[in-house]
């Protein structure tokens, strides 16, 4: 009866659970996303190009990508400083501030959006003093930038924090024993070993900001060509029943986010080969 020698596994249920997983995945994720790409194929390359290069679309993409990049840069610097303070120093309220970092993850985007707007509006707690200095934040690109900084900060902190915690203290002691001063130790030994995590955090914050909608649209002002982000333009095109336009912009943004995922995966792999897992 050696015919019973089939490909069997030690635990039951693989066929059933894998089948259900693939079905559910297809129904919820793959078919809808495929529909998006199919819709784009209804456009000729010329039409596609025309939509993407229209002034309003180009500007929306520029605003989304440009401000996201700037916000991610700020997150990178401030995130590093925050991680350093939280991991290396003791100060009153340290654990509270550590917990606070997660709020932008946890707060629904619409709530963040109205709160930031209220805060930076001309009569807001921060908007009023800034207005006296002649700086207008709400309903300008600066507002978009602020909202993007808000939602991006946890990505950098939570990616870098465990790596800094796990950093072997001996490498610092070794650097010091070799005569390096603190400045050299930090900038030549510690920060370089954080680079993969820093870049990963940067990429995640950037990607999140590019696609962000809820926390940005309230404070943005949404003036075409000036403070209109790409996700909002998609919504506007949809409400005008210009599905083709919405789809074309969406596809470009989706592809960009796939590129970022790939980059992040590469970064993770790179980090592994550089710093082998214990």
């Amino acid at each position, binding site marked *: 009866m050696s015919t019973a020698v089939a490909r069997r596994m030690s635990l039951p249920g693989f066929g059933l*659970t894998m089948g259900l997983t693939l079905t559910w*995945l297809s129904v919820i994720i793959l078919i809808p996303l495929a*529909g998006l790409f199919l819709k784009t194929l209804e456009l000729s390359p010329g039409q596609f190009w025309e939509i993407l290069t229209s002034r309003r679309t180009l500007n929306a993409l520029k605003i989304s990508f440009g401000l996201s990049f700037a916000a991610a840069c700020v997150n990178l610097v401030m995130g590093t400083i925050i991680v350093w303070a*939280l991991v290396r120093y003791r100060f009153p309220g340290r654990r509270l*501030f550590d917990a606070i970092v997660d709020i932008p993850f946890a707060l629904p985007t*619409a*709530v963040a959006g109205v709160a930031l707007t209220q805060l930076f509006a001309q009569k807001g707690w921060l908007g009023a003093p800034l207005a006296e200095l002649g700086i207008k934040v709400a309903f300008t690109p600066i507002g978009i930038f602020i909202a993007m900084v808000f939602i991006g900060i946890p*990505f950098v902190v939570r990616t870098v924090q*465990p790596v800094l915690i796990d950093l072997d203290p001996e490498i610092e002691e070794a650097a010091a024993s070799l005569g390096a001063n603190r400045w050299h130790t930090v900038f030549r030994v510690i920060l370089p070993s954080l680079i993969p995590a820093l870049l990963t955090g940067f990429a995640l914050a950037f990607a999140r900001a590019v696609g962000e909608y809820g926390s940005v649209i309230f404070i943005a002002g949404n003036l075409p060509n000036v403070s209109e982000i790409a996700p909002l333009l*998609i919504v506007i095109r949809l409400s005008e029943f210009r599905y083709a336009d919405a789809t074309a912009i969406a596809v470009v943004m989706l592809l960009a986010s796939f590129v970022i995922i790939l980059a992040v995966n590469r970064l993770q792999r790179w980090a592994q080969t550089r710093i082998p897992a214990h």
Partner: protein
Amino acid sequence: MSMQTNFVTPVAQLKAYASTAGVAIAIPSHGEPGERSRAVASPRDLRTEPGPIRFVVIALAVSFLTVFVVLPLVVVFASAFSKGISAYFAALAEPEALSAIKLTLLVAAISVGLNLVFGVIAAWAIAKFDFRGKTFLITLIDLPFSVSPVISGLVFVLLFGAQGYWGSWLQAHNIHILFAVPGIALATIFVTFPFVARSLIPLMQEQGTQEEEAAISLGASGLQTFFRVTLPNIKWGLLYGVLLCNARAMGEFGAVSVVSGHIRGETNTMPLLVEILYNEYQFVASFAIASLLAMLALITLVVKAVLERRLDEGQIPRNDPGDH
């Protein structure tokens, strides 16, 4: 396009990437990162900076977090109560508010329930078996994290909208998906898809298959093995995934906004109502609803911290140190 990880925690995030890449990243318990092994530097330590620099770094970190994170949160509650407590509760008692709360709870129940079941099923298939293409499958499950919420809604409009693939068929059969509960639920399921599976996969991989194999060799059936052996071992991780899934489901704005149609009293969830009331300058009402969502976020964070501690404790070493 974005790591729309609204709320993937560091643990989940890192576990996620760790397991994609096959590395074990030590996850510190929340709030007290790794202090067992590495105390914060004492003044004489080689591993710290001069006092003034430390002061500047701490001051920058604290003021940044205060301005960008604490103040917005405070503004929510301050604005909600700006006209007094009675105005606050009056706003919450509005029929429109109540119907939004009901709809939000309904949609969260549907999407969390389905994602719970399918997340566990997916985690079983992925964590307990070896097969080719596993990394690719995990990447597919992760996809919703990296799709802009607006696009997550858009894909369903393209399928079910009046001009979508199945729009006219649905219209002919008088089936309402878009601008109705099914559409809102679908969009929510899409954006919360990875949470449960992603919290379970690393945990179940780490636990291996030995206990399940032992149960099977003792005569247990597949379901008995799952409910008596696997489930008790993953309960905290499962709760963790459900918690994050629920928070995101209740708070989702972009995707739901695209498919909801904003029909007052019918298809407005709480986040959508926040938007509508804000745009109508009903600030107290808007922030009252927002304050409920903010409290949900705060409670979620607290419970999450508790669960993370449980998860850390749950990692019992396989062998006694003394055994080696």
